[in-house]
């Protein structure tokens, strides 16, 4: 019941979306109406022509010439209208998918990261790309087949009635039979198709998992077992797919058969009627071609309805995403920050049942360098998520320069931060564009200076196109370390007052890191910086070292005071210097 009402709401919503192009829709309907009626008029005219050629010496050439001219006019006009209809329909559905995609993407850029992180990338992508496409296909089919189909159905009935009401009645009686048959096939097909896509999904998931883990599969000699399991699913798919294909391919023969039956009945009755003078031979010829026209839309309508089911499911997924509330942005701006950061009684968790951060209290002066250390999973990266307002605190307040960061726009807040993450994301585009990502109007000198500061200049120059080298998706063929250098250059160009470095040098080889460290030191001077790192050299020079464990700051101080405390920091520190005897 609920599904039914939500289905109705869904259709209403899709209609609203479509009706934005009222003029085009009206044109499409008008064109298809004209096209169908003209197409249907042709058999009548053909029949008329045939009626004027009864036998040897009984051919009325003058009249036939007239009728043939009429046929040509009708055909020409019908063809023009059909072309117009096709063109308009294409426009409507392509524009609809474009607008929808854009709306979904825009909405995604305004969603909380909490929402985005909760969905796998592939799933969001398939909503943006595949589901939108599916909806547009459904729309196109509705306009180009469903509506003309229905019109054809009704108009052929009308035409048939004008030729012979009696035979029409017979056809009308036979119709439900063919509908029932089509329905039976369609419902079977639908079931088989859902089963098929289910098994296909299993196969895709399995393939994905095993190919991603291929190295391990090889190392443990599991190729045979892996392929055996694949074949198992594959065999299941073969059976399911055989049935789905077979059942779906029954639609045409069965309706063709129904058509043959109706055709036979009409032919027999028509001939009787012609003998009795109830119908002319030309009329019978027209009638026979109508029975053909009349049964054809059933096929199409059934196909469209299946397609529409898919389109509705896609629409539901898209609307579901669009209905997720977007971020509400305060209009207040954070002025250029000096770099004072304060955590007051902050608590946070990704999942309410698993508290992560608790009782975080922290006061940082402008220009201080803060290192965050602790075991894996203790919440280091989460601190950065909160500072950038990728996530909001559950409890407590974070202040920058005394301003609660929730009271200013995220954009202005983030302009005060420069961030380098372990995950090196680059945009597809040239190296120059990537370095200037945070400051698109940067001059050539600024870009080169930033690249030099990040020690990226020398490898960039060695690339065939230098700064104009186009990077493919995810940095293309650059090594992990080179990508990280570009990420650093990207921040070097903006030089915001607060820096967040989360394992920023993890993929850079030791020699380069040594050099880059100097550049970092330079950059961090007079800037507030938060550094998450494993390497001690990075940590030791920090003004404040925060030692985190289980979501709390358990120790706080500089290197020397912390070592003296004989606590977790000392343990971590010593493990790095574990001597031969300890091993």
């Amino acid at each position, binding site marked *: 019941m609920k599904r039914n009402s939500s289905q109705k709401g869904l259709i209403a919503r899709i209609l609203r979306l479509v009706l934005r192009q009222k003029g085009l829709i009206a044109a499409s309907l008008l064109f298809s109406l004209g096209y169908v009626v003209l197409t249907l008029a042709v058999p009548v005219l053909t029949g008329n022509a045939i009626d004027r*050629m009864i036998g*040897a010496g009984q051919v009325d*050439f003058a009249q*036939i010439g007239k009728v043939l001219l009429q046929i*040509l006019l009708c055909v020409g006009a019908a063809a023009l209208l*059909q072309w117009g209809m*096709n*063109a308009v329909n*294409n*426009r409507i559905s*392509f524009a609809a998918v*474009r607008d929808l995609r*854009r709306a979904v*993407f825009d909405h995604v850029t*305004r969603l909380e990261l909490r929402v985005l992180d909760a969905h796998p*990338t592939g799933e969001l*992508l398939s909503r943006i*790309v595949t589901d939108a496409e599916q909806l547009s296909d459904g729309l196109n089919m509705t306009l180009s087949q469903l509506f003309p189909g229905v019109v054809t159905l009704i108009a052929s009935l009308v035409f048939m009635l004008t030729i012979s009401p009696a035979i029409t009645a017979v056809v009308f009686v036979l119709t439900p039979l063919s509908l029932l048959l089509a329905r039976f096939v369609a419902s079977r097909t639908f079931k088989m198709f859902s089963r098929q896509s289910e098994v296909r999904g299993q196969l895709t998931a399995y393939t994905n998992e*095993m*190919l991603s*883990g*291929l190295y391990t599969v*090889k*190392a443990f*000699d*599991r190729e045979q077992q892996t392929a055996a399991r*694949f074949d198992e699913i*594959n*065999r299941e798919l073969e059976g399911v797919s055989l049935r789905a*294909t077979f059942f779906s391919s029954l639609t045409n023969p*069965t309706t*063709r058969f129904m058509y043959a039956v109706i055709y036979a009945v009409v032919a*027999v009755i028509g001939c*009787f009627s012609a*003998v009795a003078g109830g119908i002319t031979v030309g009329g019978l010829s027209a009638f026979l071609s109508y029975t*053909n026209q009349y049964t054809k839309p059933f096929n199409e309508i059934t196909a469209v309805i299946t397609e529409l089911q898919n389109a509705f499911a896609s629409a539901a997924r898209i609307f579901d995403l669009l209905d997720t509330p977007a971020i509400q942005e305060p209009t207040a701006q954070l002025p250029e920050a000096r770099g004072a950061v304060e955590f007051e009684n902050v608590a946070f968790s990704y999942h309410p049942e698993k508290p992560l951060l608790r009782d975080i209290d922290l006061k940082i002066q402008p220009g201080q360098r803060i290192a965050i250390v*602790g*075991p*894996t999973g203790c919440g280091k990266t989460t601190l950065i998520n909160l500072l950038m307002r990728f996530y909001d605190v559950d409890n407590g307040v974070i202040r920058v320069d005394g301003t609660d960061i929730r009271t200013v726009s995220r954009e202005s807040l*983030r302009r005060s*931060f420069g*961030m380098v993450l372990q995950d090196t*994301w680059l945009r*597809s585009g040239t190296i120059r564009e990537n370095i200037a*990502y945070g400051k698109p109007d940067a001059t050539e000198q600024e870009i080169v200076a930033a690249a030099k500061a990040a020690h990226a200049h020398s490898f960039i120059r060695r690339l065939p196109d230098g700064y104009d080298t186009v990077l493919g*998706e995810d940095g293309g063929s650059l*090594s*992990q*370390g080179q990508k990280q250098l570009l990420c650093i250059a990207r921040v070097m160009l903006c030089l915001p007052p607060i820096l967040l470095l989360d394992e920023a040098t993890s993929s850079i*080889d*030791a*020699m*380069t890191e040594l050099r880059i460290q100097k550049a970092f030191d330079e950059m961090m001077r007079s800037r507030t910086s938060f550094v998450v790192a*494993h*390497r*001690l050299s990075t940590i030791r020079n920090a003004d404040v070292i925060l030692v985190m464990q289980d979501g709390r700051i358990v120790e706080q101080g500089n290197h020397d005071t912390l070592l003296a405390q004989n606590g977790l920091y000392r343990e971590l520190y010593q*493990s*790095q210097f574990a001597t*031969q005897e*300890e091993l």
Partner: protein
Amino acid sequence: MKRLLRYLRQSLIQTILAPLFKMLEAVFELFVPLVVADMIDNSHLGTQYLLTRGGLLLALGVIGLASAVTAQYFAARAAARTGTLMRSDLFRHCTALSYTQMDQTGISTLIQRMTGDINQVQTGVNMFLRLFLRSPFVVAGAMVMAFTVNAKAALIFVAVIAVLFAVVGLLTKLTMPLYKHNQSRLDAVLRAGREHLTGVRVVRAFAREEEERHSFAQKGEVLFAGQRKAGHLSALLGPLTYVIINLATVAVLQVGAVQIDTGILTMGEVIALVNYMSQILIELVKFSNLIITLSRGMASLSRVNDIFALEPPQTAGQSASTASCDAPAVELRNVSFSYHGEGKEALRDVSFSLGRGQTLGVIGATGSGKTTLIQLIPAFYPASSGQVLIDGIRAEEWDSTALHQKIGIVPQKAQLFSGSIRSNLLWGDETADDAALWQALETAQAADFVHRKDGGLDHELEADGANLSGGQKQRLCIARALVRNPEILILDDAACALDYATDAKLRKALKGCTQQTAVILVSQRIATVRGADQILLLEDGEVAGLGTHEQLLQNNEAYRELCVLQLGEEALG
């Protein structure tokens, strides 16, 4: 294409019978207009005659249905079989590819080939078997039938069929490249979307959402323009064929009128001719749809064949051997290696020897050849020159299963599979009991967190171990390798997600339980390798130093620099 034919040969009977039955159906269909013409012209012969003719029409319908259903079944059978065989082969082919080839092609591409493309091929085969003979046959048949009715009128059929083929051919030729183009534009939209989602933190950190929206909208606009262009062109197909067929109908009527007037043709025969004309139209629409499906299928087939064309690396070794002597567990003698047999060498002239119970630390920057080095030991790749000896026997000469049995490898990227923790650990050794599994977990510092999971060993992991943290995954991978009780244990930067404290505990535990095992530790951390019996420093694929920590510290400048950087000046004492 050859490959496809080979698959089709597997279901030879269905492949041959499907089109034949389809043709049979067409034959019966072609008789219908003749019967109807006969009925119209002889309707004066009475009820009995008309009813038997009506019965004949019905019988034609039933036989047509029966042969169509048979044909559809055979076609579906052959297509499903072909798809299944192709998928199975492609999967095996993929598992044989080298890591470099996988990286170059990309997993998502492989999956697309495996699923979407093969499905497309399957549909293509199905449609081909069903329609490719039928449509031309109906068209040709209608023409032949027209000749049996009247040769002069039939000439119109010949002309119209020629014109139709020309028009359909031309339009397909014009639209195909446009469709291809649009596919790449759609890919661009997809890429833009994916790129945004994977980099969403950076985009937001730099407050570039507006530009992202703009650039995405622009890609959508480009796609829209392309789709409209292709759409307008393909929108011509229906109206054009309609006009051509009807012009021909008018011509038939004109000729028919003359022929009737001279008494050569009857009314019924003219109607039959008109009916044949409309059969051609219907078949033509199907045929042009078939062409679209087929060309999609062909494109997919060639994409699949591109993957088949990737030559998997020569996997070494067939001759079995279990001989063991006093030779070192692992020995490399002047080994060089390059991935594609030519081009830049990833390893150059590497030699070392590692005995049982000894530990070798391998250290070097990213891209220095560490992972390549360890991949030679289980003979994932054969050395280009020099020798890789395992127990004194060349790695290539080992039976690969016997060789892999000796080796426990923990890859850089922790890879687990959906299933229970137990089923994952059993990859190491199918016969291991729970006690052995727990012992391995204990050593790998994983026992604690496994205990805490619901169900312990039976805790279900999601695909790729997604419900575990990076460190937990790594520890399970280490445990999996230990379950095997390997003679050679290789850890490829396997502890990089662990913090130093856990890493140290792990190394201590490993030391305790690997008295007879040759251990290779690959790392970027000095702390991880400093306790090893030998340390191999790799730089750009070449050995830059080999010795103990102390030796290297004394006489190797590069190693020393690395230590200063990671441990600090004073730690070197």
